[in-house]
């Protein structure tokens, strides 16, 4: 059993061991081991040239990582908190994402950007945001989120090996949750980078979710079971591209779907999922696709965050609405 944080640490370690071109870079990732200790011990074992404490400048982190990638390196950058990624937005969206297309495939930038995201830890402002939709809206990026130690480890290893830039969202409230991590890349539990995972089978309603909300949805499914409702839970894992086939197959079977994410529902990725389900499952749907998410307000102060974040009751409320539509 490993915590999510340990599983990611081991994923980074495996990357550094397997490929001499892999580098880890970011603010305080070396000597300190990162503010969440995700990179703990890596600089000691791989040296300050490969596990680099950078100046405090996010555009610089991503910009130099792009230059390193052009030179043949595979940098794995850490952005310390979700709300600190915006200074790097130009480098991510105009540079990193578009290099392959702009150069007609001549320049590639296999950079991984790890972002601890979403709330639930009682943090101060700018430390709890779910900003994945900014990046899923940009062609040329892969965007993934790992909800469990198993996926934290293997999704990261796949992201490092991938020739595309990958934005890797880590639900920070889950860093300390434990789970098993399989040893072999050939284990059937190791899914491809762009595949969704059905984490609980059910027949009545499909919950489509990712990141911090996977656990919430699993608890909702357990609670619903007691009331005689069978909920299926699908963890998208890959937010761009989306594994539409898996989502559609599930919803065609259950006929009801609720999308649950922590980001505001307005303009969020849940809208894209709902639209795709509308297009592909129209005749199978017994109710409109519902969304449960954050409100269209700036992330509130710590004492209000449990009102803002979807919880078990809000998920079950939406389940009731699709069941009794």
């Amino acid at each position, binding site marked *: 059993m490993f915590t999510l944080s340990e599983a990611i640490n081991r994923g980074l370690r495996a990357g550094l061991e397997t490929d001499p071109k892999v580098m880890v870079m970011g603010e305080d990732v070396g000597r300190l081991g990162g503010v969440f200790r995700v990179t703990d011990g890596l600089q000691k074992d791989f040296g300050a040239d490969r596990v680099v404490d950078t100046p405090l400048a996010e555009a610089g982190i991503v910009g130099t990582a792009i230059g390193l990638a*052009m*030179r043949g390196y595979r*940098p794995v950058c850490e952005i310390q908190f979700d709300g600190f990624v915006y*200074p790097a937005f130009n480098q991510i969206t105009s*540079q990193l994402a578009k290099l392959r*297309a*702009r150069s007609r*495939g001549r320049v590639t930038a296999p950079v991984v950007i790890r972002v601890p995201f979403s709330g639930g830890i009682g943090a101060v402002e700018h430390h709890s945001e779910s900003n994945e939709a900014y990046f899923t809206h940009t062609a040329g990026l892969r965007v993934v989120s790992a909800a469990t130690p198993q996926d934290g480890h293997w999704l990261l290893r796949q992201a490092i090996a991938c020739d595309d830039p990958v934005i890797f969202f880590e639900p920070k409230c889950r860093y300390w949750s434990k789970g098993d991590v399989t040893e072999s890349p050939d284990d059937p539990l190791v899914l491809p980078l762009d595949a969704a995972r059905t984490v609980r089978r059910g027949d009545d309603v499909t919950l489509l979710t990712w990141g911090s909300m996977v656990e919430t949805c699993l608890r909702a499914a357990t609670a619903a079971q007691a009331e005689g409702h069978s909920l299926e839970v699908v963890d998208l894992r890959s937010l761009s*591209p989306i594994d539409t*086939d898996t989502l559609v197959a599930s919803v065609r079977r259950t006929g009801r779907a609720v999308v649950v994410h922590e980001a505001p529902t307005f303009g969020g990725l849940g809208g894209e999922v709902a639209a795709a389900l509308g297009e592909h499952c129209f005749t199978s749907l017994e109710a409109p696709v519902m969304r449960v998410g954050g409100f269209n307000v700036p992330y509130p102060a710590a004492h209000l965050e449990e009102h803002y974040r979807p919880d078990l009751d809000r998920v079950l409320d939406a389940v009731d609405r699709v069941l009794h539509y």
Partner: protein
Amino acid sequence: MVEIFQLLGPDGDLRDGPSASAIDAELCRALFRDMVLARRFDDEAYYLQRQGELGLWLQSRGQEAAQVGSIRALRDTDWVFPSYRDHAAALCRGIEPAELLAQWRGVSQSGWDPARYRFHIYTLVLAAQLPHAVGYAIGAQHDGADELVMTYFGEGSSSEGEANEAFNWAATMAAPVLFFCQNNQWAISTPTQAQFGAPLHQRAAGFGLSTQVVDGNDVLAVHVATSRAAEAVRCGEGPAFIEALTYRIAGHSTSDDPTRYRSDAELDHWQTLDPLDRLRRLLEARGWADDGFFTHLEAEATALAERVRGACRALAAPEAASMFDHVLAEPGPALAAERAAYVEYAGSFLD
């Protein structure tokens, strides 16, 4: 007040001395040829834009000395991260006219293979290429390669956060980078006095960069200063910064109207400092080039102009579906489906 390094005065007078020891007739003829061809290329591209053959053109007229003098001081193995007005430098690296014009004709977003010329594609978002240059240089340093990286940018770009992050980063990491600023006095309509409060070279020095200020219309001074800086960077003395004072003779782009914000008198003044004229005066005064040289060069420029026109008009629009290429390493089912649906839709029209 910092001293502006100059070897060749506007009158064509060469200041002899230790700094000028590497300057000879052969170097001057070669630099002159590069500048003449670059200007002819630039003029021709401008005409092509006016004829509707190019969507937009950003003229390099007036900045030939800054670009030619600097890039000719590098080794072919050194990497260059340009901005978007660096046509003279690009031509020196052997980039073909068609490759340079493709982007401006609107047939692709870039025209050349950066690895082939060790010259990255143009970056249009200001200063975004500076951290790339630093990262690339750190990689070269890790590889133990005897290479340096030069990046071009303008004085306007120096206000961008990414420029300042790159200066700081390079100094902190002792990266083998040469920052080459072409201060052409104008960022579209914004003059330098509205761009920064402290002189740029002063700020660069404050970051810990080894800094020189050079007359950017003096190709010989630029060449010597760049050679000097490159040598120091190569010896591991850390990153360097050159501010070349030059002038954007034309508008920012073919969509710009510089008469709205600057005076004829200012333009006239800078015309008298033209980089090509002053080197020609030296070549003639010293007898380093005869009539045959100039006649031959003129014929070469005329032939280039013809080649540029032909190459431009031959650049055809690509297949529409090619926009789906190279988004990711593998398109994946969603993008493949989007492409297939578009191709089917486009094919459903009767001619």
